């Protein structure tokens, strides 16, 4: 049996990669994908700890997170398409209308 700490380490690694992707990549699509990575890192943690604590709550919560990620991805992609139609770009640097 694989020790739980491995799962936690995997989740942490995925999370870190996701965060770095969000912070460093300029393409909005990639940022969205990085957010999916973060969510899935959380899912791994939830499922691993559910197994560890012998409780099904974590797995249920993971199902919710997957659903939420799907909905979020749909909304996010819709936003990106609308944004691209208006600005002809998917570069996060150029989307700075809220600056002072």
């Amino acid at each position, binding site marked *: 049996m694989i020790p739980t700490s491995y799962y936690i380490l995997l989740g942490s690694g995925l999370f870190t990669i996701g965060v770095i992707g969000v*912070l460093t990549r300029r393409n909005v699509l990639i*940022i969205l994908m990085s957010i999916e990575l973060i969510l899935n890192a959380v899912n791994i943690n939830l499922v691993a700890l559910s197994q560890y604590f012998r409780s099904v709550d974590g797995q249920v919560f993971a199902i919710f997170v997957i659903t939420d990620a799907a909905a979020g991805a749909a909304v996010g992609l819709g936003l990106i398409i609308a944004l691209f139609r208006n600005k002809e770009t998917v570069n996060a640097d150029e989307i*700075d209308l809220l*600056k002072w």
Partner: protein
Amino acid sequence: MLEHIWLIPLFPALGALTQLLIGRRLSNKAVSAVSVGLPGLSLLWALGCIVEFFRLPSDVHVFNKVLYSWLPAGAFRLADGSLSNLNVHVGFQLDPLSTVMLLVVTGVGFLIHVYSIGYMGHEGGYYRFFGYMNLFMFSMLVLVLANNYLMMFVGWEGVGLCSYLLIGFYFQRGSASDAGKKAFVVNRIGDAGFLLGVMLMAVTFGSLDFQEVTAQAISGRFPVGSSAIVAICILLFIGATGKSAQIPLYTWLPDAMEGPTPVSALIHAATMVTAGVYMVARSNALFILAPTAMALVAGIGAATAIWAASIGLVQNDIKRVLAYSTVSQLGYMFLACGVGAFGAGIFHLMTHAFFKALLFLGAGSVIHALSGEQDMRKMGGLWGRVPTTAKTMLVATLAISGAPLFSGFFSKDEILWKAFSSPYGSLLLWLVGFATAGLTAFYMFRLFFLTFAGQSRVPHEIEHHIHESPKVMTIPLICLAVGALAAGYIGWPKILGGSNHFEHFLEPVFENPRAMPGFEHAWQSEFGLMLLSVGVALAGFLVAYFWYVKRPETPQLVAAKARPIYQVVLNKYYIDELYDALFVNRAKNLGNALAAFDLGVVDGGVNGVAWSTRMSGEVSRFWDTWVIDGLVNVTAFVVKVMSYPAKLIQTGGVQTYAWMITLGVLIFMAYYLVHF
């Protein structure tokens, strides 16, 4: 009726009010009905009053009706230190003198109003004309019926105003409005004298009532020649020289002929200009106390008589000849007053009112017939063309020339006789009057012959339209002709078998124990003088006849021979030019200087205040813009500068915010790791 004597001036006042308020909306017929009817009523009322006055007991010579107290001035100290209570009333007085004036004003005035219906019928401003005429009647009646000097002065100013308005009746014509102004300004000079006289009278007598002043003057309170009385008399006489056109203030009257002819007849011949004579006669008790003033009156009167007559000799405008004749005849009246023959002066005033009004109305009728022509050189041969006018004019000409049995004969001879025989008179005064009588006969017959006799010199296009005036104009002429013929009979002198009712009638007014007693003269001398004056009048007539009928070329020859003299007289001795140079232009210069002062100093001061206010406003504005606003702006700037670092954070970039969140989380985590 006598109790309501105030209705006499009230009637024309109502007429004036009607015309001047709503006359514009009335038809000409309604205007004439009101404005001729009301003076007519006034005439009837006056006649009623006079009849009642005659019925009063024979020792009552004055009827005095006080309506109300006008100026109760209260107690004040007189010039001699005594206390008096001056109270001026609005009151009317009827005595023999005002009876005569009342009859002349209402009678002649009414006839001239009737005549005006015809004469003014085609003129614009018909209602305005009658409004002014009625206003004049009102003022004149106040003047002659007043029982004190101040109320008389009100009437005096009123007639002056109406004179101004009516001279300038054709105000579109520059010469007419100038003449109106001249009359007003010249009269003003005289009026100032009158007013000063009245003031001096108030502080000398403590009363302005005719009866009171006369009683005090007769009482012996003041010695003959008392300086206050002499001053009052001279001041009053200055007033009279203005209103009655005597030297030196006569120049306005000839120019006043710019007004319509009925105005010349009523105001500038029959009534207003005689107001001065009336006033002097009314003040006879004062003048008797001032022999110096008497001599002045007589001298000015005689000088004016011959001076104006000489100008009248050469004038070519028919109305101007009559104007100078009026001035000259007024001189006669003052001559009479100046030699103490006030009765004779008033007698001449009355007869003159008839024949001079007739002459003016006749001249108006001629002018009417000739479509407005006034130059006698363009008349002639009108005798058969305007028969009624011509015949009535002949009566008036005979009357003014002093032909025996016409009214002027009686009054003029009485004046001449008094000038010679009165203790105040002298041979010189008589001689001047006598010469004037000859000149008068000459210029009047010159006028008559130039107008009615000889060949017609009327331009062809006017010749067709010559017509006798309508009945409404000729009937007043006939009435006045009867007056001019017969008015003298009431003063038929003793020497010709009469009893001079007129003089006896006026005696209560002019009787004065303080007058110098007259000397007895042989009746032959009076008769002789009478013959002489008839002779000189006849001579004047004959010269006129030979010069203007027999040999019409003579006047030119004479004028050519004495060219310089002729020019001087034709130009009225250049008196107008002299006055312009001496007084009028000086006054204008003074006016200009005052205007310059006004513009420069007074307006300059106001503008300076405005400028300094504006400048202090500028300073205020500067402070506001740079200091007050500056402080506010500096505060705003400081805030703006201080906000600069803060706003750097807000890049609008999503990832910047993500970094911050991440860093924040890391910081929190680090904190927790360290502390727990």
